[in-house]
């Protein structure tokens, strides 16, 4: 007699609550304007313990002082608190719910809870909070003060100084408490399991991060008849600093209070470290337009970053944008009166990226505390922290650069009822910062630094159409959009011994390409296996996956692997926003989809007994001599032939999804105006209500992993404006 536990519903609720409230006011007098808002949001999780609360405010104030000064202050703040279970994160709970054997009961008939080894305890009790909680409190303050001086004797010239200060504090508290779960042995006796932890323990982490920006700029903007000129020169200095601190104690005598002081003083740990970063930027802009018909703008940035070695810290990033509003030309107005607006635009420029770890040009040694130190002295050991080289210094690397080009049109037709926006763009990234892991042998013996080593090209077309119209009381709109993307690796360092079909360079695959075998169905008989090529492993049997011998040596070896998939990034993205309104009643729909996308699925969904998992329903259609046309190989545990990366596990994850549906009603203005109210709007909406996809196992949008599921949300609310 075995249990049949649906762990998914045992642990997870089928719905969660979320609420959101926002209030904003704006106004001002002749010299002073203000904007203020405050908000509150609450999100419940899929199990009761998980919660998220957020409060935020914003206050902007601008005031003219005297004749030539404008004083501006902007501040905003956010305080949030998230709560999760103590031992594991939410993703793990979902994985557990999917992989746990159903034959394990959650609760025995006598009321005791079962101990599940995979969960290192009982996941239901953990999700209920019996194992403690993890809370993260995050406080963010963003503020800036600026003063602008309009130079009186040169019209259009202004000088501005700005100081910005961002501060972020994160306080994390992980409080683990003991709880009881039981083992029932074959004889029916219950004994308490050694759940984790045996005594309460607490870890607190505190992180503070601050950014100080000082900026000085000169701006000039003035029209001379049909000519309009603008110019900007700006200097920016950014100073980032951060500190981390953590402390913990174990062996608390009680679970009642979660304060460090109450833990065992002899079981105390602490860690701490600090980081700093610096950046300097010089920015220039020059703009010119004639009758707003011919538009030209030149920009440049000259940025310095302490990520790079001295002499290589600065990068120059210019860009140029041109535009022509053809529809303003007299000849065009005559020739095509049904096109009230048409603009052609193009731009070309450089952008820089320095997102790698700092100090990789210096020979530095870092202290490694707990795992890489050593103890000498036998029975009275003296522990010494280890000291090791951080990274092989690279004295010669600099900014990664992207050349971005764009050509597009913006047009409207038939009294602006139809709009069209279309762009062709290229992004050619050179000097990509990447460590040469594929060509430098491990004989070097140290972590490799980034080099300016790779080159990738992305190209694409983006089209957005819109149609809106009105007949009597009914108005409607349809706005579809689509993006077509294509990328190509132009340069990537791989050794010359790597077979041509395994090289990234020259292929339309990204760096997340999957290398694997080309599958050729399943072996149907021993004779097929004997006929060759020799399979990868000696234990291959009928019902296992057959691979293609790419190099023709009549045996399957790693040399037969090729780049089988570009990874889970779609080539085509699409969406549509549509709506209809009738006497204050609105129906709005937002569709979203992706095509030309596939996933290489692995793990629990693909393999019947992954980990200590359980087969899923789809594995019923496995190969057997009676079911030769199966969609899965024969039932297997630890069959390396079948768990290789191969095209067998590629699935098309194209999808179309109704992302948002909203039904709303606004009270007529005639009722509201006397009360001084400008809008009252009631709405109900739903998120992720419908999905069309041939991929059924998990959410196609996040198909590559077993993680927190996509939630379906239902909202109801009211907006009031005064």
């Amino acid at each position, binding site marked *: 007699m075995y249990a049949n536990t649906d762990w998914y519903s045992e642990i997870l609720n089928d719905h969660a609550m979320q609420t959101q409230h926002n209030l904003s006011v704006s106004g001002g007098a002749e010299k002073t304007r203000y904007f203020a808002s405050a908000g509150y949001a609450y999100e419940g999780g899929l199990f009761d313990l998980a919660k998220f609360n957020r409060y935020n405010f914003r206050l902007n104030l601008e005031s003219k002082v005297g004749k030539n000064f404008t004083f501006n202050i902007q501040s905003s703040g956010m305080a949030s608190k998230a709560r999760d279970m103590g031992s594991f994160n939410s993703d793990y709970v979902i994985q557990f719910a999917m992989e746990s054997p159903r034959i394990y009961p959650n609760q025995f008939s006598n009321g005791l809870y079962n101990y599940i080894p995979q969960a290192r305890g009982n996941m239901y009790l953990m999700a209920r909070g019996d194992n403690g909680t993890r809370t993260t409190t995050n406080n963010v303050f963003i503020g800036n003060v600026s003063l602008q001086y309009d130079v009186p004797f040169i019209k259009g010239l202004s000088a501005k100084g700005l100081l910005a200060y961002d501060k972020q504090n994160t306080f994390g508290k992980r409080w683990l408490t003991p709880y009881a779960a039981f083992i029932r042995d074959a004889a029916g006796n219950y004994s308490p399991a050694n759940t984790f932890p045996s005594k309460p323990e607490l870890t607190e982490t505190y992180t503070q991060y601050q950014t100080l920006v000082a900026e000085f700029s000169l701006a000039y903007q003035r029209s001379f008849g049909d000519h309009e000129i603008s110019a900007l020169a700006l200097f920016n200095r950014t100073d980032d600093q951060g500190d981390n601190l953590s402390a913990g104690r174990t062996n608390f005598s009680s679970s009642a209070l979660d304060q460090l002081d109450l833990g065992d003083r002899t079981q105390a740990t602490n860690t701490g470290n600090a980081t*700093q970063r610096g950046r300097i930027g010089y920015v220039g802009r020059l703009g010119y337009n004639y009758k707003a018909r011919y538009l030209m703008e030149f920009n440049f940035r000259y940025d310095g970053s*302490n990520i790079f070695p001295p002499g290589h810290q600065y990068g120059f990033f210019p860009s140029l944008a041109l535009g022509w509003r053809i529809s303003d030309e007299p000849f065009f107005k005559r020739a095509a009166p049904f096109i009230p607006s048409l603009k052609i635009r193009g731009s070309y420029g450089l952008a820089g990226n320095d997102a790698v770890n700092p100090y990789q040009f210096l020979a530095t040694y870092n202290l490694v505390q707990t795992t890489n130190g050593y103890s000498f002295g036998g029975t009275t050991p003296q*522990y*010494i922290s280890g000291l090791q080289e951080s990274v092989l210094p690279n004295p010669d690397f600099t900014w990664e650069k992207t050349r971005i080009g764009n050509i597009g049109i913006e047009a409207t037709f038939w009294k602006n009822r139809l709009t069209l926006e279309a762009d062709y763009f290229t992004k050619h990234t050179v000097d990509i910062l990447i460590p040469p892991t594929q060509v430098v*042998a491990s004989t070097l013996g140290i972590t490799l630094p980034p080099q300016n080593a790779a080159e990738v090209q992305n190209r694409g077309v983006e089209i957005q159409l819109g149609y809106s119209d009105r007949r009597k009381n009914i108005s409607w709109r349809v706005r579809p959009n689509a993006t077509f993307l294509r990328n190509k690796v132009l340069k990537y360092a791989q050794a010359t011994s790597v077979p041509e079909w395994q090289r990234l360079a020259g292929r339309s695959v990204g760096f997340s390409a999957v290398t694997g075998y080309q599958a050729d169905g399943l072996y149907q008989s021993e004779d097929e296996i004997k006929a060759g090529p020799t399979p990868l492993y000696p234990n291959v049997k009928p019902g296992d996956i057959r691979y293609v011998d790419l190099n023709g040596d009549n045996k399957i070896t790693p040399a037969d692997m090729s780049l089988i998939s570009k990874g889970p990034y779609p080539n085509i993205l699409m969406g549509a926003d549509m709506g209809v309104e009738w006497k204050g009643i609105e129906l709005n729909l937002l569709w979203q989809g992706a095509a030309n996308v596939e996933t290489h699925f692995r793990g629990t969904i693909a393999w019947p007994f992954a980990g200590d998992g359980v087969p899923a329903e789809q594995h019923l259609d496995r190969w057997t001599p009676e079911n030769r046309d199966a969609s899965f190989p024969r039932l297997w545990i630890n069959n390396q032939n079948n768990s290789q990366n191969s095209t067998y596990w590629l699935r098309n994850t194209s999808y179309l999804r109704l992302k948002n549906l909203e039904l709303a009603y606004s009270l007529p203005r005639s009722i509201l105006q006397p009360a001084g109210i400008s809008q009252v709007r009631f709405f109900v909406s739903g998120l992720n209500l419908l999905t069309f996809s041939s991929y059924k196992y998990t959410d196609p949008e996040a198909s590559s992993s077993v993680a927190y599921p996509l939630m379906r949300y239902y909202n109801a609310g009211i907006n009031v404006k005064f």
Partner: protein
Amino acid sequence: MQKIFFSILTFSVFAASCSTDLLDRGPLDKYSEQNVWKDSTLINLYVGNIYAGIRSTYDEGGDWLMACITDEGESARTFHLSQQINSGQYGPSDNVYSPYWTGCYTQARKCNTLLERVPEAPLSDALRTRMTGEAYFLRALAYMQLYDRFGRFPIIDKVLSLEDETTIPRAKDEDCVKFILADLDKAASLLPPSYNSANLGRATSWAAIALKSRFLLNQHRDTEAAAAAWAVIDSKKYILFGDFLTLFNPENDNNTEIIFDKQYASGISGQTHSLDTYENSPFFTGFSSAITCPTQNLVDAFKMKDGLAWDQSPLYNAAKPYDNRDPRFYATVLYDGYQWMNETVDMKKGSKFNRASGSGSSPTGYFLRKFLNPKFDTKVNNNNANFQNCPVIRLAEIYLVYAEAKWNLGEKEEARTYVNKLRTRAKMPEIEAADFTFTSLQNERFVELAFEGQRWFDIKRWNEGPQKIGVKITGVDIQDKPEGRTYTRFDVETRFFQPKMYLFPIPLSEINKYPAGTPLEQNPNWN
């Protein structure tokens, strides 16, 4: 009023202008190269980090490959890499022992750095000599572990930079052996024979000579192996520890038998491992542990205490098959009815100690007992803090090296003498001259050094893969019948073996880094 605004303006201009040093700030949490090599305290920390990088068998607790691909053990995890090896389902792309490949060169680089820096560093002559010796010793140990697994290797004896050629081909076999032996000789000549108590645990000259004897035996250089082993024995610095059962307990760390150990320490800041956490029954640890399970094959290798095999001795009782065994058995295998941490362990499937199926269920009916700390307290040591030292080489192995080398040289009586010393310590009867065969010597090694990481290389040296690796692995099935508890042998699996398996395939990820002209050659028949 206007003044205040002006001061904000001037301040931001000022802040913006005095920023030339912003891009030249050094790291806050790292020492510079100049700091380190001028400071003997920091250099000492650097050396400590190389010791910490030694790969010991305890560090593999829970993922213990070497114990699960020989007839010593079977992994309880169905997806453990050992299952792939045991069924022949592995190749160059499966990264078998690739951490040893990368780890060896990380260690070698650190040793090479030390050798290049120490001559210029502000150290006393004694310290300079010792650190040089330590560098040679630690480098040799890393290369030995690499050579054992993969055979010949690219020899790196200097600090490489990106300007250097890093795709260095594998050296000739005799050059690799010569290189390791030269390092051990240098270490032996530079290192002190012993240390004061504060430096206990550092490599000694005897440790270098002991490793050399092991290495020479594996190379079938018996005369030299016997000579090196004899030098260690004859030094009389080491004595067999009296009690095999408590030999590996933390209170006996660095006892008289230990020649070189990887040191672990208790407490918050100590270097710890997780052997106890991973290898005790889930009942004690609270999660799916007890992963490396001894086989019936190993259990059967332990003779009865009269010196006879279980199927020949009158002492054997099928209803109580674990009574009257070689006392070392009780220090090696946790079997049904074992008294462990105040519990009588019930190994029948479905008991609270040995789960019916899945994680925490022994595939053989046994759990590991050797090396585990009987006082391991999961209540205190929740955080994987296991701290008993891990033997790298001890006197018992030197006796076995000496005995085997002497046997090979035809001096069988000398061989028997040293085997019998181990049996006497174990409280087993001596083997009579008439009964002493190479098989009894092999069996002595099996039971004495079980799970100490040598079995695979012993089998390779004996060239007995088909007899000792590609064999049927058995376990015990425990049932309760009306007549009492029964113990029945059952087949766990039949292992796969081909001679090419003596050497592991060079990881494909490394081979793929070498250019077409100067390849990193794969081991024979692994392509």
